[in-house]
């Protein structure tokens, strides 16, 4: 199982599922549904936020929260 925080910069993946309901609601509101492509754009050092693109939406998520997001690498 790969989570979003394990992805490297410029690597793409597909969103599978998320265990936290708040994060699921937030992602869904921004059009990130299971099967959506994600591409990691930037990672702030020392376990800071991860920035990723989903189609034309750019989202930043704290690394701890990104650890709940399961992706297909």
């Amino acid at each position: 199982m790969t989570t979003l925080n394990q992805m490297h910069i410029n690597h793409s993946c597909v969103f599978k599922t998320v265990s936290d309901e708040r994060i699921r609601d937030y992602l869904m509101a921004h059009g990130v549904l299971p099967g959506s492509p994600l591409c990691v754009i930037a990672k702030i050092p020392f376990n800071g936020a991860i920035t990723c693109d989903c189609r034309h939406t750019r989202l930043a998520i704290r690394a701890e929260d990104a650890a709940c997001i399961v992706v297909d690498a």
Partner: protein
Amino acid sequence: MVTLVLWGVPNAGKTTLFNRLTGQRSSVVNYPGSTVDVAYAPLRDHADVMLVDLPGVVTGVPEDDATDLATTALTHLDAWVPGALGKPSAMVGVVDATQCVHHVALLKPYLDRGYPMIIVLTMMDEAKKKGLRVNVDGLADAIGCPVFPQERYDRPHSGMIVALATVARGSHAPRVSTPITRNELQVAHEWANAQVAACITQASIPPRWDWDRFFLHPVGGFMGFVGGMAMLFSLLLYAAAPFMDMVGALFDGLAQWVGIGVPPGWIRDGLTQGIIPGLASVLVFVPQIFLLFWGIGVLESSGYLARSAVLVDKPLSLIGLNGRSFVPLLSGCACAIPAILATRSIPHKRVRWLTIMAIPLMQCSARLPVYGVLLAALSHQPLVAGVGLTGIYVGSVMIAAVVVALANRYVSPSTSGDFMIQLPSWRMPDWVYLVRHSMRKTREFIKRAGPIIMIISVGLWAASAINVAGQPVMHHVGQWMAPIFAPMGLDWRVGVAVLISFAAREVFVSALAVLVPESVMGIGPSILSPAAIMGLIVFFMVSMQCGATVAVIKHETQSLRFAVALLGGYVSLGYGLAVLMRMVMG
């Protein structure tokens, strides 16, 4: 009265559209969640139709105070708009054309509930730059309501305004509005992915440089952040200086003209020893205050603020804040009141309260004149003033970090909540809007401070000129209060100026100009020692001397105890640190 509400996700362009459709000048910021209150104005050319701008709503489920306010306004609009019915007559669905699919999906549940709606596609120019082509007619057919495209700088099409007025007059929102469920949103997204996505085509465009590769880079991002902040404060120090000299020369000329042109007597004395030096001492800092608003405006409108929030989220999370606290904290460098209102977009109550606690420690524009005078008293070297002002801003951030960390550790230990934010597209600031916006903010500062300065300057001059028992009234008052300020090493006249600054911080400078006329040429060691000046600077950095800030904190937290505790705590801490500073520095 018929009402139209602007409805959509944060940063979809609702406030820009509101300004275009009504001729208003509400603040526009390229950051999600910048609108935190209800604004309303008549629709252009249709005075009977009231257009209402609401905070953006992300999921349709209340999660922060701004979202909660928007959702409540949808059923109790009469609480905000006098003469309106509880529910709006119709909705204007504001959809960012670059994120059309999921923005329309979020409007679908309202369409299904029968809300009369017109959709406005904003940011069409940005969609074109990204190679997106939206089939507007096809989209209108798919959604089942009129759709109008709108470019950022264009005036709204007259057909759109007429259509908005017509739909508002001819329809009424449904009486029952059941809460939107997660399942309903899931279905709406699936529908939008099939129906709305079919109306959008992606043309191939040449690759463009992505600024986030630098501004969110592990090294470049932090270099950019420090560089950006350094540039902002360099503007205050160096770019403002020639303009400040011009304002100073203007008031010098005015004082000379009054001295020659007005016959001797109390009117001339009141003008030359009270009002003119009092006003001049504060208004000379207007160019600096204008540049502060302008610099923050550039950061706000470019989209950099959201990137800054991403960069500083981790360090802020260590003291119980989170990335969303950054924008209110930076706004606090201009004025604490809108900064405290901006915390409404922070979803976690505890993080919001901690952010509110830190905001009074940010150095607002009213403090700039005070620091200008006190730093000049330490040295006339521009380098010393530059290092001093940088030290004040850095020091205040450190004090705020310690205070918040202690509150987070001992008063209310908890985590800093989650942090997720949508990064807006980078945009070239609208320079004309920025200049107008900064001028409006500066005018507000002058309007607020001007009358207080005039009244206090005249009052102080009168109290200094009228004698009782062989001494001026002010002398008696000052001597009575002297023991309070003696531990800070303050001359009684400076003590009076400090006390008066509780009416408004900037009044300290004008009061000093009236009470200590020689301070216009710079405070000498005969009045204040360097240690006392340093202590006074620390006092102003920490002490909460703004009644309006206390009132807003009370209103936003619904806790008089919290507001009073902050007031008492910060004044005591400022006083204690000032005394300590004087003792340590001798």
